[in-house]
């Protein structure tokens, strides 16, 4: 049991996160300082989990899709659509729960549409989801009529900026979602089925897995997660920004999943590690903001860090790493 515990601590994702946080601390000594203010925790570390939450939520859904050897490029656009739906509905006077449920339903419908294209029409996922990636933002702009729809509905704003036990609401939502989905795929056979489809869909179907329905399910889940992220982001800035909400976040979500150790070729996957991946990305972003680098270097710094993290995770580095630090694992292999 103790050995297993050590192995977990030594996994490359958590080490990378610790490494990035350490660098942030070196650049900005107050990085780990957390204070209590206005009934909530306040500090750079809290910013990391708060700002990282939308990508973490997207990554939870994206992990399932990528595990089936698919990809969902439309999540950023779905965020924009769902944020626009929620915002325009509360502005139009609908009660907050109705607006939120409608936005979630729209996200689910978008996900089912992607699932239909991939599972039933057998279109390649990258093309199938590209449709909604392009069209979705246009739909969002139609809903908001090209402007930022600003709202003052306290209940909706709470979803983005409120706090629960001192933690930012967005982070709490991401955490609950992560636990629920992980529970769903690990305590039932669904996770195994998803993995089987990713490894070999034909073989999975022949062995009796209803691959069509499961594919629909993972894309629907991805759309649903995107809807949650879209509502959180809109609620955070008290407005639905159809042009910028979720822009390029699909790529951050895919990166989070990949950093989390899930292969783009499908198969083995880990939802908690994808969430850690999202936190690593955000820790870099927040680190850059507090470090005082010139903005011209943002992308270079980020690219360098990501290359480093992916190198650490490469099979060769992995062998070196486990061979030296955790001999038990290597011996077992």
């Amino acid at each position: 049991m103790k050995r297993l515990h050590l192995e977990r601590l030594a996994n490359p994702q958590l080490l990378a996160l610790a490494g990035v946080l350490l660098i942030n601390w070196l650049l900005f000594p107050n990085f780990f300082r957390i204070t209590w203010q206005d009934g909530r925790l306040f500090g750079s570390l809290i910013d990391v989990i708060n700002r990282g939450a939308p990508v973490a939520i997207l990554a939870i859904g994206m992990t399932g899709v990528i595990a089936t050897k698919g990809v969902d490029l439309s999540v950023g656009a779905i965020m924009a659509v769902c944020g626009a739906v929620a915002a325009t509905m509360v502005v139009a006077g609908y009660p907050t729960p109705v607006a939120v449920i409608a936005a979630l339903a729209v996200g689910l419908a978008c996900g089912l549409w992607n699932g239909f294209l991939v599972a039933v029409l057998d279109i390649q996922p990258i093309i199938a989801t590209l449709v909604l990636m392009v069209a979705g933002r246009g739909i969002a702009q139609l809903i908001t009529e090209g402007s930022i729809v600003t709202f003052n509905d306290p209940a909706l704003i709470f979803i983005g900026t409120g706090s629960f036990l001192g933690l930012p609401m967005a982070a709490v939502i991401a955490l609950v979602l992560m636990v629920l989905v992980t529970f769903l795929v690990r305590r039932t056979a669904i996770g195994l089925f998803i993995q089987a489809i990713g490894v070999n869909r034909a073989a999975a179907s022949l062995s009796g897995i209803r691959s069509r329905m499961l594919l629909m399910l993972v894309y629907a889940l991805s759309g649903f997660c995107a809807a949650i992220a879209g509502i959180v982001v809109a609620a955070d800035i008290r407005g639905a920004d159809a042009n910028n909400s979720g822009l390029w976040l699909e790529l951050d979500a895919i990166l989070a999943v990949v950093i989390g150790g899930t292969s783009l070729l499908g198969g083995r996957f880990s939802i908690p590690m994808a969430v850690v991946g999202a936190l690593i990305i955000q820790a870099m972003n927040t680190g850059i903001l507090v470090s005082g680098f010139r903005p011209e270097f943002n992308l270079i710094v980020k690219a360098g860090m990501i290359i480093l993290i992916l190198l650490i995770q490469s099979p060769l580095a992995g062998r070196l790493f486990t061979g030296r630090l955790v001999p038990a694992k290597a011996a077992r292999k």
Partner: protein
Amino acid sequence: MNIITKLAVAASLATALTSVSLAQENLNGLVVGFSQIGSESGWRAAETSVTKQQAEELGIDLKFADAQQKQENQIKAIRGFIAQGVDAILLAPVVATGWENVLTEAKEAEIPVILLDRGVDAPEDLYLSTVASDQVLEGRVAGEWLVAEVGEEECKVVELQGTVGSTPAINRKQGFEEAIAGHDNITIARSQTGDFTRAKGKEVMEGFIKAENGGAEICAVYAHNDDMAVGAIQAIKDAGLKPGTDIKVVSIDAVPDIFAAMAAGEANATVELTPDMAGPAFQALSAYLADGTEPEKFIITESKLYTPADDPQGEYDRRKGLGY
């Protein structure tokens, strides 16, 4: 707000903005083509609605073409206008290069072309004039406001830049720096990009506040556009500080939401990027058609400063209907 009220409000604002002089009567009944980039931002939507209202006021038959951010659509639209034999063309170019051929075609058809809010890389004789704001001046007006506001006090400014490498970000930064040069009490402590968006503006400001001792040492925030300022205001409030008092907020664009913040005492100043580019364009066109007066090649619109003394609630109500 439904579309009819929107139009009504837009109409009333346009009336207020337009100084329809009698000299422009010669535009009545003319057909003018307007090739707009698209509707990527609220400001552009406002520019479109102001242009349409201006045209209606002057009795101009405006042919509107939305290019959806594509140059080939704009070129097609201009060729279409030439084929229809319009009397003049307004063009808001999506990019600076690649206009020579189509502008030459317009010139050969003797149709004057006026460029709105952006310039092009083409020989000057191919178009009548460019109506645009001076972005360096916008930054300078914002900086001068801050210089006057703080006087001799020490002031640490944090800057929210626009998208890295974009022309407005470079120019608005330069103008602000020019204005505070020589005032050693004002220093830019931190500068990062907020990509012109509300969400990034908020995130970057959160980082600045943590980095500058909980925000206690920040005297003012200068944002290259109002959207980022609105995000920054939320971040300041979340940190338990008072935007507008503890940290002064100055930004550029004058969109409705910044006036709402100003009315609530949470923003201190904004410099207007007027959506009324068509007004000066029609004036120049009128003079040109009347007696061949060649207008200036670069007509600069006013960069007006708005502070809480300028009836922010009224400005908010007036602008809300313009599609910002």
